[in-house]
């Protein structure tokens, strides 16, 4: 380790990781919107002066490895050495390294003796950032209808925030400004926490040691990922997965991947993936990179290996420009999680050919987002919940029941919180969905069922999800899980929805969501009697 004392590497390295974790925890705990404070759709990191993420808070996988992608376009325009005290760099442009517009990245330079030695970075999903509908505009046909674009920009806090032009401009263009500005403040504060911790480390250990340890951390992650890759057999492995449709037509949409493993390197090529689509189910390239790295980390290295920019060095990721996973500007991208999950699925399938004992069968694997919004006399109220489902089974165990998706980690919003804060709907039922899991030697996890009862008229409902038509597929002889469905019960009739939908609901409507069950692994005939009896007695099979 470049003559660094192993104690310095361990101590400073873990302190940097602790700083990122503290930033993330405080961002979540002081945030206003449910999507940050309950769903934890946010992240925080310490990034080196060249834009390499060194340490990242483990809040949500889909932000893995993409923070640096958004800083580098900022630095190209505003080099670190030109920055001044109070400056921040901001970027949410999906075509400049960002994900979707709602994810706003903020970077604060950390000065030590007048020089930028690192950046404190935070990103949060902002519940509403303008655009054609509250929270979620499923009918957007380009980026401009999804919200306001903040290209890589430099602002100065004393000048532009706290009543300054950037804050006023932002507040004037969003539907719930108190919430959005509150969440920006939480991000800025998280950055201040990170900057204070790194500056203190530099004071104690010297800036040169801190920057040398940052380099060592990148090298360390690279070594561990190379070792994990080397353990796979050399070869080319292909996988594919399909989206139900593009949100307009009926045809399934394909994601294809080919992995080429040679020595300590991986080449991931999404050639063969469908062209970009007209609606918001496109993944900007940064999201594709995050989904890919998350899957690799889950399958290859497990929890112990820190994933920073160094981990990416032995991995190349490509997707054809103009495809679903690397669309051309200005394609809409709001629901980018759905193609990301299919990239995850295709990759899982391909990795299963190289290391069958380490992968899982397909699970519900979608972001199932429901937005319920209403314009009342006091302004807009927007509620957004991301729903869990059943995970796929593995060679060594059942999939978990009713849990957040592998690329996300959203907590549910308690029914009592909904009751206390929203007057226009209630959660009337919430439970597991017995029978939805795919059978197998190891069964999949069961999906969820949730019923929302409308208590007012004129409630805007929007949904994006997937796996309504195409069920999670079983692996090694395991049975498919049940697909998801969503419908509204009104006046004794049932109105079914497709997986991307919107409608105005009225008082008395019961909105029912049932998420998919995970698929099984191995033949059901190989399942132990004990496990079968357990599931029967617990009412998890059949209709419960």
């Amino acid at each position: 380790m470049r003559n660094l004392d192993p104690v310095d590497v361990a101590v400073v390295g873990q302190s940097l990781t602790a700083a990122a974790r503290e930033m993330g925890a405080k961002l979540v705990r002081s945030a206003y919107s449910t999507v940050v404070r309950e769903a934890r759709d946010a992240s925080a990191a310490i990034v080196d002066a060249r834009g390499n993420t060194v340490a990242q808070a483990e809040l949500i996988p889909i932000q893995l490895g993409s923070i640096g992608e958004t800083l580098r376009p900022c630095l190209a325009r505003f080099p670190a050495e030109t920055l001044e005290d109070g400056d921040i760099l901001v970027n949410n442009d999906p075509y400049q390294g960002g994900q979707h517009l709602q994810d706003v990245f903020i970077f604060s330079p950390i000065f030590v003796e007048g020089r930028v030695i690192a950046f404190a970075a935070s990103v949060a999903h902002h519940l509403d950032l303008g655009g054609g509908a509250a929270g979620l505009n499923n009918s957007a046909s380009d980026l401009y209808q999804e919200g306001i674009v903040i290209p890589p920009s430099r602002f100065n806090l004393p000048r532009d925030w706290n009543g300054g032009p950037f804050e006023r401009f932002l507040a004037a263009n969003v539907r719930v400004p108190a919430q959005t500005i509150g969440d920006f403040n939480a991000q800025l504060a998280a950055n201040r926490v990170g900057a204070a911790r790194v500056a203190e480390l530099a004071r104690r250990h010297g800036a040169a040691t801190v920057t040398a340890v940052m380099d060592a951390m990148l090298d360390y992650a690279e070594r561990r990922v190379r070792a994990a890759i080397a353990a796979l057999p050399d070869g080319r492995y292909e996988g594919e997965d399909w989206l139900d449709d593009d949100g307009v037509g009926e045809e399934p949409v394909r994601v294809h991947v080919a992995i080429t493993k040679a020595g300590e390197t991986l080449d991931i090529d999404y050639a063969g993936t469908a062209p970009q689509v007209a609606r918001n189910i496109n993944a900007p390239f940064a999201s594709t990179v995050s989904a890919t790295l998350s899957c690799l980390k889950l399958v290859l290295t497990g929890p112990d290996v820190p994933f920073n920019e160094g981990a990416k060095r032995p991995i190349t990721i490509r997707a054809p420009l103009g495809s679903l996973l690397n669309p051309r500007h200005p394609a809409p991208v709001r629901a980018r999680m759905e193609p990301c999950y299919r990239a995850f699925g295709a990759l899982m399938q391909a990795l299963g050919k190289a290391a069958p004992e380490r992968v899982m069968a397909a699970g519900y694997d979608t972001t199932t987002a429901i937005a319920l919004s209403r314009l009342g006399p006091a302004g807009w109220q927007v509620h957004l919940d991301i729903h869990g489902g059943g995970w796929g089974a593995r060679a060594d165990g059942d999939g978990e029941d009713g849990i957040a998706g592998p690329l996300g980690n959203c907590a549910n919003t308690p029914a009592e919180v909904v009751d206390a804060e929203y007057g226009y709907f209630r959660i009337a039922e919430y439970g597991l969905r017995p029978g939805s899991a795919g059978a197998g030697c190891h069964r999949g996890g069961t999906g969820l069922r949730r019923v929302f009862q409308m208590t007012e008229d004129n409630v805007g409902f929007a949904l994006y999800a997937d796996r309504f038509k195409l069920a999670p597929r079983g692996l090694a002889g395991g049975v498919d899980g049940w697909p998801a469905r969503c419908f509204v019960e009104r006046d004794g009739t049932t109105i079914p929805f497709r997986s991307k939908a919107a409608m105005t609901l009225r008082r008395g409507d019961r909105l029912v969501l049932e998420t998919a069950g995970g698929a099984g692994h191995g033949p059901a005939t190989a399942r132990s009697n004990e496990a079968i009896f357990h599931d029967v007695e617990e009412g998890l099979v059949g209709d419960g």
Partner: protein
Amino acid sequence: MRVGVEVGGTFTDLVAIDGGTVRVAKVPSVPRRPDEGAFQALQAGKLDLGAIKDLVHGSTVGTNAVLERKGARVAFLTTAGFRDLLFLQRHDRRNIYDLAYRKPTPVVRRRDCYEVPERMLADGTAERPFDAAAFERDVIPRLKAAGYEAVSVCLLNAYANPAHEEAVRDLVRRHLPGASITISSDVTREFREYERASTTTLAAYLQPVIAGYLARFEDTLGRHGFKGRFSVMQSNGGRLPAEGMRRNAITSLFSGPAAGVMGAARQAGLSGYANLITFDMGGTSTDVCLVENGRPSLAAETDIDGLPVRLPVLDIVTVGAGGGSIIWCDEGGMLRVGPESAGADPGPACYGRGGRRPTITDAHVARGTIRPDALLGGNLRIDAAAAASALAPIAEAFGLSPEDMADSALRVAEANIVRAIQLVTTERARDPRDFVLVPFGGAGPLHAAKVAADLGVGTIVVPPNAGVISAYGLIASDFVHYDTMTRRIALDDGAPAAVAEVFRAMRDGARARFEALGLARSACYTFALQMRFVGQAFELPVEVDAERAERLTVAELAELFGKVHESIFFHGAGTGRPIEIVAYRLGIVAPQTDVPALTEGGGDAGRTGDFALYDNRERQTGRLMARGALAHGVALAGPALLEDPTATVYVPRGWTARHDSHDNLVMTRG
């Protein structure tokens, strides 16, 4: 005579104080029958049970019952439509990169969960009234048929109005007279249904276990002539008379670490130290806690085996750094210490019981800070050669001498502890330099000086008999009970009156509870408001003086909250954003006024001599002596080792140690 008996995982400790005489004992625990270990400790201390005036007990009975799933057979009752509440949980994951992730396993089975026909709303009105007839027809027969020992009831929004829960309780009690019934509004009146249901169900699960254990314990005590007061330690740092515990079994979880903090706080307080960082290092882990003005800080929630427990507990942070923590090199070449531990069996390599992997204890042996003839909780002989050979491979991998390897590993372990302390200080807007460090447990005093130096702390206070301070903490603790409830109040002109009303209701309820236990005479109160900006999801505790709880002003509350928010989150003060009060925590305390002091006792002056050690990359010669042999007021300059039968204190070069008049060993730099 006052006696504290603390049953831990490995050892059962006893402290008995009679006038000026202090007796300590340490015996191996009996894992399956903790009460046997406790009585063995009483015998080892050669105590006459008839002479004990005050006996306080702490044990891992509750904790073990949960970890081993050996609690009561429980039925869970909740609002119609929400039967799966305990299985859904919050549906997130603690570890986001684990394909084999499993949610924490509830203590009830799904087949034992039932729905109650009712639905309360957040404002306390019923959307659907409780249908008692349907409940009696559909649910009661199934409960009777299954023969449950305990029933847990958590209905939606019962924190706002417990009427439905109470009606369900009365019906169940009538039909199942033998079962113990726990309703959520009795345990914690806070919102967020999963956390409340989890707490209530754990309480129901433990109630029969703890009640049975205490009944057996009291019975045995009675047969041996015990006539004194018997009380039990809680995780909130206070004790309750055993009869009070029968309604509060769940507060007995994690009482051991809490007892240590209370003992350390009481003993350091005798010397006038009120602002402390306590640091309890044992065989597998280290617990740290912040004490301000003599009062340990409280957390609103903890968990056991991943299951939330929404009750005030001492805010103790635990890291996997103990004497048995394994020293290793990961596949990326990083030096790591813990969290894996060699435990008590086989234990560190130097115990000579088959351990091969190097541990923190082995590193101490290799560099000389644990002596081959040290007294480690009994008759263990230290095998220095085994420690050296366990360290050799990793030393070679890093290209270091065995002594340098030991030194490096200890520094990494100490950095892990420093980070735990930063969690309770820096991250909560406290400057560690404003505190003294109070180390205890078998290994705490060995590491305290290095940890203090890293944090910039200048003073260390090592209590006497530092290895059994938890047992002393039992004797030293006050009688304490907390009530919590959620009621949202906007911080406007109506707020002070509403807060005063809540305070009076909570105070009167707590006083009635203490009156029933005969404790109300000298009771005093603590009061904290859980506040947040409107729109936030997490509250911050704002402590207010209970004397003034009925006379608070809006401006005062806004300022108090703004300050707390700003100090922790780096934003929020003076923004004028709307604020709300969400929940309340009222504590009732019956203080113990005549707590005897712990003392060190004499030491064998014959052990005094020089010893060789390696620290700070150099060989040094230090002074070795029995701790009890260091006379009051005599300054001992490091390097030095002070040993007593319960712990070893390491005074590095640059530090000076002296015993003060309370037998606290005060270490200062320079």
